[in-house]
């Protein structure tokens, strides 16, 4: 699956995302600099990596969401192309309107880096087809602003449409409805705070993140 990892100034999980993508999806996955006007020809997956794009100035993800490359990412998503936003990438997705809601500071106002347990709430998506229903995954988080918020109507809609894909077993940050990851209406854009790219090799403790990449690669939607 031809993968482009977008690099913003201040991205710091860009190399991790590229490493995981090359390992699982596309040995030729490439970086794309934020000032580019377009994605490489034939891009199937856009990976928005974690980090502190633009130093989190203004609001996390706010400036990156207005970078030149994001126009191309939006076009790609509108055409049904896959977009995976992790951590700061999720923040960029909500800031750019590709996903609803917002991510505010963690309930206790502190950064947390720890493995957490997630439940797969919907395994009928392009990102989760390889998982079992209600499977519990161990995937690390590392963020200070992962507290998901949306207005009650939006939350109700996300829940009703099965767009809450991952839920925390023990909510680490105060997210409404324990939400850890959601998909777009079309199901082709996934935003999540936990880092699946950190959980693709047993050497580092968990390979529970592999399912996301395996699902995309296999094109399995149950």
């Amino acid at each position: 699956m031809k993968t482009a990892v977008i690099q913003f100034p201040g991205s710091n999980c860009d190399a991790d995302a590229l490493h995981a993508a090359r390992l699982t999806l596309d040995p030729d996955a490439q970086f794309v600099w934020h000032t580019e006007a377009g994605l490489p020809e034939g891009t199937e997956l856009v990976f928005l990596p974690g980090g502190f794009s633009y130093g989190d100035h203004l609001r996390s993800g706010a400036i990156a969401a207005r970078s030149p490359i994001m126009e191309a990412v939006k076009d790609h998503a509108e055409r049904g192309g896959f977009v995976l936003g992790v951590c700061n990438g999720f923040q960029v997705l909500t800031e750019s309107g590709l996903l609803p809601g917002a991510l505010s500071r963690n309930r206790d106002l502190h950064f947390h880096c720890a493995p957490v347990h997630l439940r797969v709430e919907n395994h009928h998506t392009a990102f989760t087809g390889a998982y079992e229903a209600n499977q519990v995954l161990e995937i690390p988080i590392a963020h200070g602003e992962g507290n998901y918020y949306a207005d009650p109507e939006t939350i109700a809609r996300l829940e009703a449409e099965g767009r809450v894909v991952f839920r925390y077993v023990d909510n680490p940050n105060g997210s409404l409805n324990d939400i850890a990851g959601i998909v777009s209406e079309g199901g082709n854009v996934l935003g999540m705070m936990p880092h699946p790219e950190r959980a693709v090799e047993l050497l580092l403790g968990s390979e529970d993140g592999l399912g996301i990449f395996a699902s995309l690669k296999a094109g399995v939607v149950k």
Partner: protein
Amino acid sequence: MSQTQSLRPQAATFGLTEGEYDLLVDNIGREPNALEAAIVGAMWSEHCGYKNSRPLFRAFPTTGPQVLQGPGENAGVVDIGEGWGVAFKMESHNHPSAVEPVQGAATGVGGILRDIFAMGARPFAVLDSLRFGNPDSPRTRFLLNGVVEGISHYGNAIGVPTVGGEVTFHPSYQENPLVNVMALGLLRHEDLAKGTMGEVGNTIVYVGSKTGRDGLGGAVFSSADLSAASQADRPAVQVGDPFMEKLLLEATLEAIQAGVVAGVQDMGAAGLGSSTCEMAYRAGLGITMDLDLVPTRESGMVPMELCLSESQERMILVPVPGKEQELLDLLAKWELDVVTIGEVEAHDRYRLTWRGEVVCDLPVALLNEAPKYTREGVESADIRAKRERDLGGVPVPGDLGAVLIDLLSHPTIASKRPIFERYDHQVMTNTVVVPGAADAAVLRVKGSGMGVAATSDCNPRFVYLDPYTGAAAAVAEAARNLACVGATPLAITDNLNFGNPHEPGVYFQLQQAVQGIADACRALNTPVTGGNVSLYNQYTEGDHKVAIHPTPTIGMVGVLPDVTVRATMNLKAGPHTLYLLGRHATTLGASQYLETVHGLEAGRVPDLDLELEKRVIEGTLALIRAGLTTIAHDPSEGGLAVALAEMAIAGGQGLKVELRAPEGARPDAVLFGEAHSRVVVAIPLGHEQAAQELLDGLGVPYTALGESLGGSDRVTISVTGANVQLSVTLDALKTAFETPLREILA
């Protein structure tokens, strides 16, 4: 250049003694102007010039086949094989953190990272060695929370994992905490860069943040005692911007890898002045720089500010001749301020111009060759008396289980997980052994099967009571910690934190500690590749002086030839037999137990036998590499009983051991004494014979202790002969171990 009026009466305001001022006048044959005096004062400060410490450093071994770069550059570099090198260094940010903990600690991280990428290495791990005063005091909570926030803010944002370190508490650090930050970077041998001006005709490029008035006089500030008035020095503390540093990091590495950089150095202590002076000195050439070209963020800045500001996130790059434009274009991509501010010339002067006039004209060598002082060291009679104190009258407590709980809940020993969880310790996806899981951090090297291990260690109580043995023990402990994860120790960096060297008692500690480090490094084949000296860690209020405990923090790096062959401290499933490599402790001297339970900081530091240490390290590595164990842990503060409890807590499994006390040893010494050169390993049932044969073959002394019991929820330790037993539930141990830091951290 003419300066008619002598500045001698104000010498102290430049950080110079009158004698040093006279030396300067004699050398240049005229009176210096204020800018020149200030530059000399900064370059001759302890921080830049090592005037009190360098003469002692001749004792250090600094070479070996593994050393790619020894002392004298921005960081040391060791060869780990397959064309890879690891650049590493530790540096203190003690005084800034004492007055402004968040920014003090944050810029400590920023500064050491620049030292690493200035070598052409990509930073890939940070460790912090932190020491604070009384854990119950509001000041300690303020400092600890601030320092943790600063490290978290900077390290997390720039995306370099914080993978280890130490956090300990002792009243001597009440006013003067220690913040020592160690960073490691990975490089290919061919990318090794140097801090030199290169050759005549090269240009000098300034890149990074604009220069402001922050951090003025930092090098001098950090080379004097702290006092209540130090709060007024808050402007001497810099403010960090990790976003800018991230851009600078990527730009610098891209430029070095593109082959367009002849020399590179970060602007650290004493800023533009010191970095360009040092680079000129290494090249053996002179330079001229135009201060009007320095990018500024405030108006009306004068040469002294332009030259000595310690604004963060700035580098000097010297392009390869003919590649100037290529370098400038590459840096522009990262949207950094880039200005060519000077040129390398065929003379030996350090020249600065401003508004068309020469404002500084000094010999490069003079600036870089600070006067050296060898002082008289005399041991304090008070400390000697503490060391020689007879401990025979110390009672053996009735409830040794309660002692174990007390020790585990001492903030120095207790779990540091609440702190590590605030640091991103996994970014870069290399962290194989996370903080707190083993005696050292382990990172994999992508693209090879190897791993790199790192640790930082020092037991300041040992060093206080016996600086020679204590400092040597810090080196030994660091090497042992690396062995406990399966890494071969390679080399050290040291961060020498001491009080005021003008005091004979403090100078004695420095002298002895340096010799101890040197001897241990020689014995364990871990040369010194660089380091940092932080003196004047002393709080003065009128006649009341509190010097910190002498703290030579040792940062050590090792290599795992195969990163999958390693050990951690947690007991693992299935029955195991526990062994102690080395010998039982027989004395209470200098132990945490003696201080926590009996209120005594006294006694002799246990003898350190470096030959035994070598064998224990070799034995531990051999067991791990033969596949005979994946469980190893080194007893340190709190002794063997605490080490066993930590292994049980980490693994969620109980254990039952019988310690056979050596003839005449007290049971509390066997349980809680802090003898060196010991490692606890767990051998899976049925492999004991093979393990013993291997250890016998290497001449490693060992004792079987007992077994780890899957399914048991108790830690039971008896001392045979003394008819003593303690038995505590895992839950009680866990609560004692995990609660204290959560409460101290807001």
